């Protein structure tokens, strides 16, 4: 099914259709991840792939126009190259271990250690969380910094510009006031935000964590903006506060590392945080996940604010 949708995406000339198909594709992907036992990944993909990412593309479409020109090369040429590449890829898979094989090399390296020891060493039931926030905390710090940097990048490209009294997007939202959608969204949004907080703070025990919570929270806020307008939502969460929070999240993460450094341990060594090792790990994971969640949520909301402010391609001034 994924392939079918992907084919339609490749064929459609109308970019609006493309983006909506892409959203369906994201949802299908999320269901697939669910089937593959990757519940944490499914959460993230559902919020990002089906929600935020197509939405940002749609807003961009408003500035760049919705129809595109045809492809550049003859289909036969592309088909030929595709067939050769595809043949090579399929040939390569013949050497792969069978799908679901428990003895495959990937499952022999570090994974058994994570599965067997993390319960004792970290004391958190969700192995994904303990790998993400404890064993590979350096990686995760790097990734959070990348996200933050992307936020700064988008701001430097599209930020600035004049703060209008009324945003163009608001005028459109107000003109086509969808009463039913507004009421439904009012019922839906509090549970979404609540669920995000649950995912954030329950990530040690069930599926969840900072990344998932961040994107779900952002999706809730974005939904609200779509129905009530940028002006209204910015009275609650101002753009400045989002900018500050994005930086604060990264700082919070980094400071946990500094605290353990100051206590004479390695950077991001949570055993330094409390006398009882498990309490230390728990505390460390909770705080850095909070940092991750804050940064991810604020950067996503920031993306949306910045894009929405440029809605219609008018604000693109340097």
């Amino acid at each position, binding site marked *: 099914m994924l392939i079918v949708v992907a084919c339609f995406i490749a064929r459609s000339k109308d970019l609006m259709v493309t983006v909506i198909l892409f959203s369906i*594709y994201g949802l299908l992907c999320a269901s697939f991840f669910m089937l593959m*036992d990757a*519940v944490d990944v499914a959460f993230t993909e559902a919020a*990002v792939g089906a929600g935020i990412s197509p939405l940002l593309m749609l807003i961009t479409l408003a500035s760049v126009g919705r129809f595109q020109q045809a492809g550049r090369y003859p289909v036969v040429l592309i088909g030929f190259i595709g067939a050769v590449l595809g043949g090579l*890829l399929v040939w390569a898979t013949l050497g792969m271990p069978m799908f679901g094989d428990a003895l495959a090399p990937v499952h022999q390296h570090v*994974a058994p250690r994570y599965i067997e020891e993390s319960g004792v060493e970290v004391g958190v039931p969700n192995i994904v969380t303990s790998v993400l926030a404890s064993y590979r905390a350096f990686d995760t710090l790097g*990734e959070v910094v990348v*996200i933050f940097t992307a936020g700064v990048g988008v701001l430097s490209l599209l930020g600035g510009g004049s703060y209008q009294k009324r945003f163009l997007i608001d005028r459109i939202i107000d003109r086509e006031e969808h009463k039913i959608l507004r009421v439904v969204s009012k019922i839906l949004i509090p549970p979404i935000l609540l669920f995000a907080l649950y995912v954030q703070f329950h990530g040690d025990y069930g599926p969840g964590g900072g990344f998932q919570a961040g994107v779900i929270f952002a999706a809730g806020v974005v939904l609200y903006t779509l129905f009530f307008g940028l002006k209204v939502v910015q009275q609650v969460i101002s753009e400045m506060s989002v900018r500050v929070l994005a930086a604060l999240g990264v700082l919070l993460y980094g400071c946990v590392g500094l605290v353990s450094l100051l206590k004479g341990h390695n950077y991001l060594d949570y055993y330094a945080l409390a006398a009882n090792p498990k309490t230390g790990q728990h505390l460390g994971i909770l705080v850095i996940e909070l940092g991750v969640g804050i940064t991810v949520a604020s950067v996503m909301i920031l993306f949306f604010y910045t894009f929405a402010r440029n809605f219609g391609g008018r604000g693109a001034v340097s």
Partner: protein
Amino acid sequence: MSLMSGLFNYWAVAALLLIGLGIVVWQGNLIKKLVGLSIFQTAVFIFYISVGKVAGGTAPILDDSYSQYSNPLPHVLILTAIVVGIATTALALALVIRIKASYGSVEESDINGQDK
């Protein structure tokens, strides 16, 4: 397990990779290219998650009633990769908006033509 069912996931990944790559190379529209790139990206995600699956395993959340878990490491990598992916996509979209503002088009041929 037969060859077909044992490798089907990887073949699907190969197909998605090709579709994504095809869109990136073939289409001139920058937004379409980004969608293609995202498809390419998710194909890689699907590959990782497929590799991590263990038959008969369950989601990697420790519980006394299960002993077989899927590999948690790919999940961690992909989980963060998705969020990083949307961040970079947003950056790319921002670039596209700026390109539209200065060139008046997001078609590659138009942009190349103006640069000459």
